[in-house]
């Protein structure tokens, strides 16, 4: 049994062949993702709301799947929010996009942004100490300096813990 660089365990007492599939995609983003990403470049989290049921979607797409209507007006939410769920990733995982093993540990969290109480944004937290992580803790998006922003989700470096008066 050998363990490959990507974590796959292979029983080499049996005969096998290796064939790489290295695909590169040029994904068109369309109006909704483009608006969302360009908002990030300006330091804003822009999402929209269903004109029928009023729910928000992050990231925003063209329709509300529940109501089957086109999504409505854009609005800016955050940058502060409340942690809804979190998880410290400690097991190294092969990321086919890098490609390679992603460095661990890192903390991911679902955050309810101020202004959109019915949905979470999925991102990373600065805090990596499990004892300091709590559901309900307040956090804030930390954006990269304006010049370094590209218009990607990584324009938000992470969410950092903030203390607010009760």
């Amino acid at each position: 049994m050998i363990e490959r660089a990507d974590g796959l365990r292979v029983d080499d007492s049996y005969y096998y062949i290796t064939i790489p599939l290295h695909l590169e995609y040029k994904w068109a983003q369309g109006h909704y993702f483009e608006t969302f990403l360009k908002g990030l470049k300006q330091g804003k989290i822009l999402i929209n709301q269903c004109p029928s049921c009023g729910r928000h979607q992050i990231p925003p797409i063209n329709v509300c799947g529940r109501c089957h209507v086109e999504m409505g007006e854009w609005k800016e939410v955050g940058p502060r929010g409340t942690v809804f769920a979190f998880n410290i990733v400690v097991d190294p995982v092969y990321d086919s996009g890098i490609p390679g093993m992603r460095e661990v540990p890192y903390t991911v969290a679902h955050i309810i942004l101020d202004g959109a109480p019915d949905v979470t944004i999925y991102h990373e937290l600065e805090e990596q100490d499990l004892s300091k992580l709590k559901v309900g803790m307040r956090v804030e998006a930390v954006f990269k300096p304006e010049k370094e922003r590209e218009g990607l989700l990584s324009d938000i470096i992470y969410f950092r813990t903030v203390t607010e008066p009760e």
Partner: protein
Amino acid sequence: MLKLPLKIVNEDPLVLQGKIYLDYAYYVGPIATRFFTDLRDRGKFFGIRCGECGITYMPPRGTCGRCFGKLEEWVEVAPQGTVISHTITYYPSVCHPVKEPIVYAIVKLDGADTGLIHMLGDVEPSEAYSGMRVEAVFKEKREGNILDIKYFKPLR
């Protein structure tokens, strides 16, 4: 810190480039293991025969598609054969094993009833033709896969 392996390839409209890189490992199974071992170690071709349908399959496989019978009867076939069809591929592709132009061919080896797909070599591409008699040329260092056959060259 979130790192996204995405590249902006067009601003307006926004197009992002990303990758899916997966290296697949395929266990070849007992039939292909035997075929590749014979090819690698002895430079010999073995097909597999369906007694029911009277067909000698090349390359060998475990099931006869026609009668769904299990195949177990190994038959040695010659490294020489006849080109059934061929094409000269000019365009580049990341999956090509050698530089273009590539002459792909279906070769029916003597003693087999079905054709093996491979490449032709030692021949001017334009001089390849269907019906041409060819012979397998092996790689010096063989690893036990289909590319152990370097190509088929014209039989002179």
